[in-house]
């Protein structure tokens, strides 16, 4: 046989060559919306503590006037107050690559601009995770363990919020399983006014994918995989809430011009060269925190996972 076969030229070809393209592995990459239902605390710079107490005051219509006779002395009214504690903590991520890895990097995934983009997306994902991990704890709940989420659950939640005097707009941070159970309820129940509404039809045919889903039944919806489970993983526990339920904070650290650092918004990105080992680190630091503030401003939605 004198034919030149690929299988016979092992010294002239490699078994596989890396493509110049790459695909991102699956992950939840959506940042939380800048929604009015989320309270963003003030900048922690120069505060004197990594923990702040956010006061709650019963003013602006909290106490109504009482009727008195013409010359009776006005009775005093107690001022109701409360507070929530918000602490920021350090969050960080570090990649470290050897010089040789950087030399042979074909796709460019070790380039500083790529790692900077990764830092930015990861920082926002961390904020989303912190906030989503609070929606399962509200005292008020709707839905049932082991039962698919439904339109009735959503209506119950908005009713609960309104009865508790929570001001809209409401934000729903839920697991995609909960969202799609409700969408199925929209699609499969025939004849109800809700199912036949334009909003419901838009929801049922909405583009798939995590993140912002639009408004439906008076709630702006956001889906994320970070929504916690309940009942030992049997259920998901998302939340629907108005302003005052959840607060978050970040403490920006300005980049030092004398160091290889740059600010990506409030996050600090820096490179760290270790000459003795010929490695270069790419780090991102952020100081973040989130807390539940007024419990009654939110409702936890428990439904089958």
């Amino acid at each position, binding site marked *: 046989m004198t034919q030149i076969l690929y299988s016979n030229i092992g010294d002239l070809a490699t078994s596989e060559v890396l493509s110049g393209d790459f695909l991102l592995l699956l992950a939840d990459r959506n940042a939380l919306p800048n929604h009015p239902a989320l309270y963003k605390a003030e900048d922690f710079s120069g505060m004197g503590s990594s923990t702040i107490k956010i006061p709650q005051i019963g003013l602006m219509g909290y106490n109504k006037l009482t009727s008195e006779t013409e010359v009776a002395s006005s009775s005093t009214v107690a001022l109701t107050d409360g507070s929530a504690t918000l602490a920021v903590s350090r969050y960080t991520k570090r990649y470290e690559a050897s010089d040789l890895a950087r030399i042979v990097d074909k796709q460019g995934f070790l380039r500083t601009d790529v790692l900077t983009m990764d830092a930015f997306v990861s920082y926002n994902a961390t904020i989303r995770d912190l906030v989503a991990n609070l929606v399962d704890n509200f005292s008020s709940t709707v839905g049932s363990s082991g039962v698919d989420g439904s339109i*009735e659950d959503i209506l119950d939640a908005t009713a609960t919020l309104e009865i508790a005097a929570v001001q809209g707009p409401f934000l729903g941070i839920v697991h995609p399983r909960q969202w799609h159970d409700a969408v199925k309820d929209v699609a499969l129940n025939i004849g109800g006014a809700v199912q036949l509404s334009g909003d419901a039809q838009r929801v049922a045919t909405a583009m798939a994918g995590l993140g912002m889903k639009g408004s439906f039944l008076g709630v702006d919806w956001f889906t994320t995989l970070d929504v916690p489970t309940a*009942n030992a993983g049997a259920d998901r526990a998302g939340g629907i809430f108005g302003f005052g339920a959840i607060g978050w904070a970040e403490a920006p650290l300005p980049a030092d011009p004398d160091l290889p650092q740059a600010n990506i918004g409030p996050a600090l990105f820096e490179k760290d060269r270790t000459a003795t080992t010929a490695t270069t680190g790419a780090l991102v630091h952020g100081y973040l925190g*989130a807390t539940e503030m007024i419990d009654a401003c939110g409702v936890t939605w*428990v439904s089958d996972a």
Partner: protein
Amino acid sequence: MPATPFVTSDSSHQPAGAVAGSAFVPSEDAEMRGNHAPRLTPRAAFYYFAQPERWQVLEGKVLPLLGKMKLRAGVGGVTAGRVPGSVNLRAAKVDLEEKRRILIPVDSVPPAHRAKSYLSTVDGCPGVVISLYEKAYPGLAETRPDTKRWVEFLEYQVGRTVPAPGEHVLERMLDERVKSRERAMSHEKRNTSKIERLEQEIEVLRAELDKRVEMAEPVDGSAAVPMVEE
């Protein structure tokens, strides 16, 4: 180069005139790739807590619907501890108490479950802490509940770490289900599973309320007489 199988039959069963062959076993160069550990993403440890208003009907019983205090710095007032990897819960616990929430000690586990903690790590998944009542499986990104033992765990807490639900809580839960059943019967007649579930839950709640009536202790007060000029 692997041989191409063209005969699969055994010579003992060889029909007359057919070409003989031998058994063929495909061979593979590559070793099996892949990680067979569960594919769980990192999850912080947590403490369960109960809330006076949060109850549910689960497996025919009225049980607390527990929340989770995530032991993660930056969440709910939790801060980083002095020892690397530890957390400081001082502010978080104050916040919890102000919200009338009851922390369930991590060792409050039914003796029959033979565990020192209601939390568990998962082999092959660093940074993952799950409930003792969740089951992790190779290759799966989600856990499955151990419902029987979870219900036992919740039952164990009632009266020990979590006070039994107040009468008003049971009444509210009952009221919600009665209304929901009425709505389902008038608008979702075909949804028999929902109606049946609600009827079962109503029965459970009524039985629980009957038990409570004897123990009920409403808040004390005194007679209110409005001042009215005749």
